[in-house]
């Protein structure tokens, strides 16, 4: 293009603190220099993975509905959890149980939800967090909206919106980040790039070399991180959240990770990807490296690992029992929450439902 001058310049930084072997790649920012938190985060990753494995098994044995595993993505979810404060609000997709558990959502709640029971969205410990959101990307305008509410009220809080690599193709995603940029909202967007949207690899979604650069179109700060590096997640999201809370605007973070599992229990990933690819990805998974990091610092041992796993397994077993013995909701429950009060015209429909309850 002759006669051209440059009117705008952008770059996308990348952050990794802990490499795949558990070695620090440089000095640790103070935000992540907290051994107590390392342990808590690592423990939560283990707990999450054990739960995840159990949930898949429950589905396989007909005791749970379709379930979307999070195997291999625990660092993103737990790191986000640790980076947030209770007053922040999380807008998840459907895979981020590590974040939910960190914030106090119970194991039973998650089982209930995927077990086909609306009561699984109760979240007594984090009452403003949104439940799972199935229509892809539709949670992002909510995240922006909550961020707007915080800004309008002058509250030092941030909204955290999750989105998948596939989700970045939906218009709602762009509308939300563009708005957050335009208004300088306290929104942290975490793009979980696990390389696939069901069977579609990222290259089907976009020609972009990074998903982080989507933030450039929203006029916002953006960066890419190693999403299997718990410390990088903790630092990048922590910094972004702090900026957001103090009024310095939104950030978009692309977290590179890999979905080691099938998309959901209904999916068969071997139809569309090679075993070698998965093997290679497994070598970069997030838990081993964090365990090494802790062990090298004498903060964790095989014995501790075994004890913690046993503790988690017992907790999970108890939650599963609780879940399995939770009676279904009464048929009335279909009508109880459609409106604040049942409209007259729904009364006779409720009568009909009651009359046929259990009689199909």
């Amino acid at each position, binding site marked *: 293009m002759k006669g051209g001058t440059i009117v705008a310049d952008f770059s996308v930084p990348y952050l990794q603190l802990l490499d795949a072997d558990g070695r620090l790649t440089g000095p640790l920012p103070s935000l992540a220099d907290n051994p107590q938190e390392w342990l808590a985060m690592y423990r939560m990753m283990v707990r999450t993975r054990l739960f995840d494995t159990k949930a898949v098994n429950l589905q396989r044995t007909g005791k749970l509905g379709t379930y979307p595993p999070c195997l291999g993505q625990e660092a993103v979810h737990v790191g986000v959890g640790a980076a947030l404060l209770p007053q922040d609000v999380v807008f998840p997709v459907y895979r981020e149980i590590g974040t939910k558990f960190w914030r106090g959502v119970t194991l039973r709640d998650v089982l209930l939800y995927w077990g086909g029971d*609306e*009561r699984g*969205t*109760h*979240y007594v410990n984090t*009452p*403003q967090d*949104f*439940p799972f959101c199935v*229509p892809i990307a*539709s949670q*992002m*305008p*909510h*995240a*922006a*909206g*909550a961020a*707007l*509410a*915080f800004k*309008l009220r002058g509250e030092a809080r941030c*909204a955290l919106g999750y989105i998948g690599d596939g989700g970045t193709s939906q*218009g*709602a995603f762009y*509308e*939300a980040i*563009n*708005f957050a940029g*335009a208004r300088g909202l306290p929104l942290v967007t975490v793009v979980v790039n696990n390389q696939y949207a069901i069977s579609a690899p990222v290259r089907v979604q976009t020609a972009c070399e990074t998903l982080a650069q989507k933030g450039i179109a929203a006029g916002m700060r953006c960066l890419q991180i190693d999403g299997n590096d718990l410390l990088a997640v903790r630092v990048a999201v922590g910094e972004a959240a702090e900026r957001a809370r103090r009024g310095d605007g939104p950030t978009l973070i692309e977290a590179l990770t890999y979905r080691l599992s099938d998309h959901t229990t209904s999916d068969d990933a071997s139809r569309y990807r090679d075993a070698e690819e998965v093997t290679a990805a497994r070598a970069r998974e997030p838990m081993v490296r964090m365990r090494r990091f802790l062990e090298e610092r004498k903060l964790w041992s095989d014995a501790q690992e075994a004890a913690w796993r046993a503790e988690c397994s017992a907790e999970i077993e108890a939650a599963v029992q609780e879940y399995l013995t939770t009676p279904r909701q009464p048929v009335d*429950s279909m009508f*109880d*929450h*459609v*409106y*604040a009060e049942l*409209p*007259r*015209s*729904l009364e006779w429909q409720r009568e009909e439902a009651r009359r046929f309850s259990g009689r199909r």
Partner: protein
Amino acid sequence: MAQISMVEAINLAQAWELQNDPDMVVLGEDVGVNGGVFRATSGLQQRFGAQRVFDTPLAEGLIAGVSVALAAQGLKPVAEIQFMGFIYPALDQIASHMARLRNRTRGRITCPLVLRMPHGGGIHAPEHHSESLETLLCHHPGLRVLCPSSPQRAYGMLLGAIRSPDPVMFLEPVRLYRLARQEVQDDGQALPIDRCFRLRNGDDVTLLSWGAMTVEAMKAAERLAKENIQCDVLDVASLAPIDFDSILDSVVKTGRLVIAHEAVRTCGVGAEIAATVAEHALYDLRAPVRRVTGYDTIMPLYRLENEYLPGVERIVDAVRATLVDG
């Protein structure tokens, strides 16, 4: 008490509530400095500031989605969709979240908000600016769908909508925005949002309509009165949930029913009313229920608009047919 138009009434109701409910905010395209393309929010930003009355980017899905979260956060969003024909990009948020959030979370997170939108044709507007798409909303349980037909009802029902614990879709007939002026008391009194309004008492035929069609229905009723046919004219007003008690009472009294609406006929709200009435009052019906509706075609560009929109002639004809039938 001043004589005001419907659009002024809508403006007043918003001003009243902005004044009295510190959580209320107004958002949408051009609602700020410009005061809305129909001036329904004129002066509100000036009076209440850009923190409470503000323009959004041009994205209806965003407006709806942001409103969901504002409501969940305890604010009371009253958002404008510039024309009902542009509701489509917002439908995912409306159907998947507004209508469902309460149910999904068993009441933990609710979504009390208002989406205001100009509705219907008759003002020679460009393509997509004259749509009557209430069915798309009424088919989604969890929403309340309202359509006022006078300045007074617009004022009171809008206040009722803003104060409702449910998400309310508020359809404003463009043709009535400035058609007639009426004395409206600006006293902050809400009207019920689950009721029909009787516009005229009659024993011969029940005549149901909403929005701009109520004006045609009333004209038809006046014309028919001269032939000594007395119509019981009801403004349905609350299109979801519908006040079937009042409708059935009237039909039981008259034995005849004509429904007039601008929307496409197939699966219009008229179909629901006709089906429900025929289900609950078949033996009271002395003639088939007749629907006078927009045709199952695309609303034409404006040169043929009046051929498309149901008018007095078609309503009168349907009423007469109903009397001949039975």
